[in-house]
């Protein structure tokens, strides 16, 4: 009976693994799938980018709302630093440095969270809104742009909101990778999870690389309040 059971189990085992690809082949398929997904997302962000140049113009040419430049530069720098720590985590896992990978992922998460908070509280003016309502004071010289500020508000919140949504999903991915890394799921040879998370995070950075000049730098600054 024991022999029959073992024989049966062997068949079950063979059936289970019959459709599995060799790891190298599976890795190539995973990479291609991820890049195709990211390529599909390009259309969304290019649409927003194009809307910015179509809607933010007047008789004098391309314009932009007068935004807080310091906030923009800080947010950009923080996201860039987070990208550095993410690629550091990937290099660390490739060389078997689990602790360094773990620490780098935590730093990426912290920097990503700071970026998100800077978007919500500074760029969207939530901090000044809270302070103004509670204490009657404001911290920033520029009054934050509002969703109701015509085409300026619509495009600004469309671009920063959609980007922030991707930052949030990236942060969730980092938490998953941290939890799996803690369980020892990644080795020097096999760490697709870390690689996929890193590629996604850098993609979010690439989007901001184009959004930052589009929102803050290109065109003549004009007042936007309706």
């Amino acid at each position, binding site marked *: 009976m024991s022999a029959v059971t073992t024989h049966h189990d062997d068949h079950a085992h063979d059936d289970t693994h019959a459709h599995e690809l060799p790891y190298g082949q599976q890795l190539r398929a995973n990479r291609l799938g991820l890049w195709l997904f990211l390529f599909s997302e390009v259309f969304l962000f290019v649409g927003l980018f194009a809307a910015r140049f179509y809607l933010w113009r007047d008789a004098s040419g391309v314009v932009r709302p007068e935004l807080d430049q310091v906030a923009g530069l800080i947010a950009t720098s923080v996201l860039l630093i987070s990208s550095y720590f993410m690629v550091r985590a990937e290099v660390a896992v490739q060389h078997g440095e689990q602790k360094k990978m773990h620490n780098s992922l935590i730093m990426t998460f912290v920097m990503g969270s700071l970026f998100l908070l800077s978007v919500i509280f500074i760029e969207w003016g939530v901090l000044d809104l809270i302070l103004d309502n509670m204490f009657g004071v404001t911290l920033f010289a520029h009054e934050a742009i509002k969703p109701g500020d015509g085409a300026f508000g619509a495009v600004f919140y469309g671009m920063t909101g959609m980007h922030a949504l991707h930052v949030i999903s990236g942060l969730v991915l980092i938490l998953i990778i941290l939890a799996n890394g803690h369980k020892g799921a990644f080795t020097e040879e096999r760490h697709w999870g870390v690689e996929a998370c890193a590629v996604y995070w850098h993609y979010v950075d690439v989007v901001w*690389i184009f959004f930052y000049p589009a929102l803050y730098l290109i065109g003549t600054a004009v007042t936007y309040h309706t």
Partner: protein
Amino acid sequence: MQDNKRAAYALIRNVFLVLFVVSLAELAVAIYLESTVLLLLLASAKAVLVVYYFMHIYRLWRQEAH
């Protein structure tokens, strides 16, 4: 092996520094030159660096040994 590791860390650090300097250059271009084309070129250069050195796009065409 140790040299490879050191080189890998040095590479990502150098790329990060270049990205940071180009970001500051973007701000300077916006203030002093106000050139849309130059700003888009600088952004594209940054994106190429990230896609190649951080996202490793070349791995798409690489055959893995294991």
